[in-house]
């Protein structure tokens, strides 16, 4: 008997190949894509109510995007060779495209859009600050200090075009992550054409929830009043997206159960045993049903502002836990059963090893540190934010 193994595993399957770091990868890229899509609501779809979170959402997306490749890099047996993916990409490999999708999104979409959005502030700060700060802002202007109304109109038009390109790019970024898993025909837990679309909607859910929480936290820290109209609107979009996400996940579940192919008995047993806590209790019950009920309640019952705020923030926090559990169940769950469908292994999460819990926590905290630096360098508080706050 091998410790942690029940039934029969092919001998090389006993040890899991993809660890908690690979769980972080779709989780983090999902937050990027979701935050960006929330930002585009204001820019492209003219949902003015979410304007106070526009800049915050862009900076959130950037902070997480900068960290997104790190768990992958840390996981590689030979991280020094990762650049080969750019030099000699294997065109039939879904994974080979990661670098290109990532670079496209980082440089063409996010950095450009952030620069255009903050250009006026950057130019002003390059004129009003001193010393090193001044030099930094001077560099950030990229030599363009024309902030006349004509120039700003051009910025706005270009920014709009980039956001329009950015929406399918955000879909590509996260749909692609889903494809990496969904296209593995050897693994029935992953292999479904629904995977990219499920990943995409869960990304939007987690990204919207993350920006909502960061907005509330920022307002608290800045001792500014939360714009309830904005929060109500974000919560409404969170609810709609979550309903679609939940429907897709249920569709996947019903489809699997009804089809009941040769893998079903094994996967069903896994969900009822090894994944019971993380999938049924944390992902479905705590991370999906409870927040959905909370959000649904705010749509049909008129609660006081304080109650609504508490419900939104509770729902948002549970969503973050639930989506993390979803990523965990996909990545780890997909390796707990044998491809012989005759046995199960266990995942032992180490603490201080390269792929252990400690680096995972550090990687999860890093985007928040980057976010703090970003909001220091590029304060996202527009006068719309202050106006909205003072108007309340």
């Amino acid at each position, binding site marked *: 008997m091998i410790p942690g193994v029940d*039934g*029969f*595993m*092919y*001998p*090389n*399957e006993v*040890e899991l*190949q*993809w660890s908690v770091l690979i769980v972080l990868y779709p989780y983090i890229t999902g937050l990027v894509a979701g935050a960006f899509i929330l930002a585009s609501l204001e820019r492209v779809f003219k949902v003015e109510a979410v304007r106070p979170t526009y800049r915050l959402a862009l900076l959130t997306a950037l902070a997480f995007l900068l960290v997104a490749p790190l768990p*992958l890099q840390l*996981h*590689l*047996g*030979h*991280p020094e*060779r*990762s650049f*080969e*993916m750019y030099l*000699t*990409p*294997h065109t*039939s*490999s*879904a*994974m*080979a495209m*990661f670098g290109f999708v990532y670079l496209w999104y980082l440089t063409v979409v996010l950095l450009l859009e952030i620069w255009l959005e903050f250009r006026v502030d950057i130019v002003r700060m390059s004129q009003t600050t001193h010393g090193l700060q001044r030099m930094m802002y001077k560099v950030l202007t990229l030599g363009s200090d024309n902030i006349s109304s004509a120039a700003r109109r051009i910025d706005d038009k270009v920014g709009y075009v980039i956001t329009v390109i950015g929406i399918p790019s955000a879909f590509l970024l996260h749909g692609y992550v889903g494809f*990496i898993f969904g296209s*593995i*025909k*050897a*693994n029935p837990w992953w292999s479904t054409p629904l995977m990219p679309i499920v990943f995409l909607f869960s990304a939007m859910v987690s990204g919207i929830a993350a920006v909502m929480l960061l907005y509330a936290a920022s307002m608290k820290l800045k001792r500014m009043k939360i714009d309830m109209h904005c929060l109500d609107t974000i919560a409404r979009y969170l609810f709609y997206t979550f309903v679609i996400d939940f429907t897709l996940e249920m569709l996947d579940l019903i489809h699997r159960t009804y089809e009941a192919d040769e893998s079903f008995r094994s996967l069903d047993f896994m969900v009822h045993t090894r994944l019971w806590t993380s999938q049924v209790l944390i992902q479905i019950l705590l991370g999906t049903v409870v927040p959905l009920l909370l959000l649904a309640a705010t749509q049909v019952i008129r609660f006081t502002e304080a109650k609504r705020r508490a419900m939104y923030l509770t729902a948002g926090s549970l969503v973050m836990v639930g989506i993390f559990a979803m990523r965990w169940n996909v990545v780890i769950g*997909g*390796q707990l059963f*044998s*491809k*012989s*469908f*005759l*046995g199960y292994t266990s995942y032992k999460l180490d603490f201080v090893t390269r792929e252990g819990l400690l680096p995972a926590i550090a990687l999860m905290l890093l985007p928040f540190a980057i976010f703090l630096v970003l909001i220091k360098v590029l304060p996202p508080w527009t006068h719309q934010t202050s106006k909205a706050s003072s108007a309340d």
Partner: protein
Amino acid sequence: MDITRRDIIEFGTKLLVLASVGATFEQVTGAEPAPDAYKMADHWWGMLIDIGKCIGCGNCVRACSNENKVPDGYFRTWVERYQLEEDKLPVVDSPKGAIDGFPLPTKVDLKSFFVPKLCNHCVDSPCVQVCPVGATFISPDGVVLVDESYCLGCRYCVQACPYGCRYLHPEKETVDKCTLCYHRITKGLTTACCENCPTGARQLVDFKNPQDPIHDFLKHNKVQVLKAYMATDPKVKYKDLDVAVR
């Protein structure tokens, strides 16, 4: 001999022209290949496994381990024992990949047999498809290999293999697997596992060699492959494969 710029340009041009029409390095440099030199294009390697002949001794696993310095706890080849009772799930075991053979069965009077496993050297290998840098490739003679000087150790191929034949080498941190003893078969030898099988349950076969007995065998016997529904076109063929085998 002085090498002039003219010589270099002449050689470079020759190399380019000949390379474009598929000339070998030997033809370009003028060196004649040895008459018995191994030509990849003349071979298409695979293996035939006769389940009825396997006695589960584990000789093949030990031979492979010694020949290829397979790290402890990982397997380029292994043997599974199936014990089947009517209307019940198969009971399968492979203690340490059967490197020490098998203990006696706990129940007698069961349908029981051994199934040697190894990389199937699939023609349409999912592992080759997913490798992000092409470090895993199929050689012109049909052997799926890993270039360990190029492998990133991302393990996407391990996930993509339906047969569980790959692992991350704990010291090299690159993916490792059965090479069909490429270092031996290209010298006219058979694989370590085939050589050490006391019953001839494993036979290295060359589908491109018209003299290979495999052609006659395939004409007169029914063979199967593992997980045919995966459409990977495995080149490891099994005689008498039971439907219970996964």
